[in-house]
């Protein structure tokens, strides 16, 4: 078994890929918790598409891949924010307009300049083979920044996510918190683009957090679970991709979805068991734990 796990590590591309997916999976899982609790799943999906358009434009202008993607991602954020501020156009509509237009720009340029079609396939569908040491440094920097910022901003992030208006009354600069969070999200998406691909980043963000939500009803635990599930998903997806010779991004996403399904099924079977054997008990892992906790509280323990 150990030999089986160690064998692919002989290859440099696999070592780089494994490290990259571990970091990307963990940071996507962590930030994904806030993405789903803030109802921003579609933002993640849209921003990845806008960043792709930016990467293509950057290529035309002889800019770095990440620089073009970053500038366009930030531009998309600002435009979405500006459009929704008046209240006449809702967030989902603004994301649809802005990010799809930017993605379409990238596709239009590619179709015009067909010589670099191949280079952008990695950004669209993910390709672990070409991860350089420079990419690893960038992904490491983004992951560390995400972890540190989420730790130091835990309190304002939690309060403004739960109850934005009251947080503002209490003196939290909610607009600033939202901006910092959006920047982190954009950076994470850009760092993940070449690993899982634009078309599948949203799933990488959401699946670990959604699985963690099924496992706990505690915000801080949900963050830790999502981080661990994200990291495991990345590493397991990488190995499975090597074994079955499938696209890395797609394999990671499929493994994340499988974990979610398993967790949901376990919850479902547990509910059935509780209903059959303890009709008075609440159903679900999470609810059962709460019920027990409430009983302990009632008993003054």
């Amino acid at each position: 078994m150990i030999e089986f796990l160690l064998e692919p590590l002989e290859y440099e591309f696999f070592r780089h890929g494994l490290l990259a997916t571990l970091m990307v999976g963990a940071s996507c899982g962590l930030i994904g918790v806030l993405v789903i609790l803030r109802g921003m799943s579609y933002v993640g999906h849209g921003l990845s598409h806008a960043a792709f358009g930016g990467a293509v434009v950057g290529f035309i202008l002889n800019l770095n891949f990440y620089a073009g993607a970053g500038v366009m991602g930030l531009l998309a954020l600002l435009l979405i924010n500006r459009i929704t501020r008046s209240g006449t156009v809702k967030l989902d509509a603004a994301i649809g307009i802005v990010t799809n237009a930017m993605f379409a720009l990238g596709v239009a340029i590619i179709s015009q300049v067909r010589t670099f079609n191949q280079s952008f396939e990695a950004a669209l569908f993910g390709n672990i083979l070409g991860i350089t040491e420079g990419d690893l440094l960038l992904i490491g920097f983004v992951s560390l920044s995400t972890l540190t910022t989420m730790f130091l901003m835990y309190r304002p992030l939690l309060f403004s996510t739960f109850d934005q208006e009251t947080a503002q009354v209490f003196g939290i600069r909610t607009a600033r918190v939202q901006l910092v969070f959006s920047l982190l999200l954009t950076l994470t998406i850009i760092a993940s683009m070449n690993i899982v691909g634009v078309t599948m980043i949203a799933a990488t963000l959401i699946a670990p957090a959604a699985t963690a939500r099924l496992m706990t009803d505690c915000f801080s635990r949900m963050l830790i679970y999502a981080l661990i599930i994200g990291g495991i998903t990345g590493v397991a997806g990488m190995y499975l991709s090597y074994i079955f010779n499938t696209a890395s991004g797609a394999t990671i996403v499929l493994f994340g979805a499988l974990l979610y399904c398993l967790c949901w099924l376990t919850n479902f079977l547990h509910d059935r068991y509780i209903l059959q054997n303890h009709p008075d008990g609440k159903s679900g892992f999470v609810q059962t734990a709460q019920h027990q906790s409430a009983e302990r509280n009632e008993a003054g323990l």
Partner: protein
Amino acid sequence: MSTRAISSTESHIHPAISLSDVTAGYGRHIVFKRLSLKIDRGQFAGIVGPTACGKTTLLKTILGTQSPLSGTVLLDGQTLNDIPRGIIGYVPQLESVDWRFPVTVEEVILMGFYTGKRPWPWPSREERERVHDLAHRLGIYRCLRQQISNTSGGQRQRAFLARALVNNPALLVLDEPTSGVDIKAQHEVLHLLGDINSEGITILLTTHDLNAVASHLPWVICFRNGLIAQGKPRDIFTNDILTRTYGGDITIVRHEDYFLIANGTPIHFSDGDQ
């Protein structure tokens, strides 16, 4: 419970809330124009009025979450930018929050401290002790570790109230504290607010429940896209003022010092089935 003074040495001459010529609205839609309103320190006042009459906009303007289009809002003589953090306690409408959010009652109350400078995610011993004291006082100590989704409307209201009180505010603002809870919980919350007010905290709330205002609040403000009248409930709850506020038939049934406000003609129960 001690309350903090908001202002300087001249604080005693300033009302707790003062609006001068305030116009508020959203874009081109004006909700109220040139409103001037003063609420004294230590007051326990309720704003009543029909749905979409601007009550919530008025609260948001006072709280500073919405900037007025013109005019001045002062809290104890100071602009919102000058008052210290945590001086206002706020309890939002219960409906404004997603109750499936993964937090416990204790975590909700602790959020009141999240405006401080402490960077660590976990609470300090002082913060936890303060939360436990408040939870004891408000009768929610036993459900501190419960998920907020597993609590009743009354417990959620008390958790929000405890969160609003953790910083010893001088002003407590509540948006519809009587909605979303049963009659018993309504009266308990209003009694609790009366106790809190007796300790010197100015309280301003909005409500649709005129009878609760009549029985629990010493001061009422009738509002309909502007100030209609304000004063003691017995002086304000007249057919004329309530009809001007709500624009429909309001019946007031008086009996000695008590009165009951009903919408439309009172129901006459017949003795037998028709």
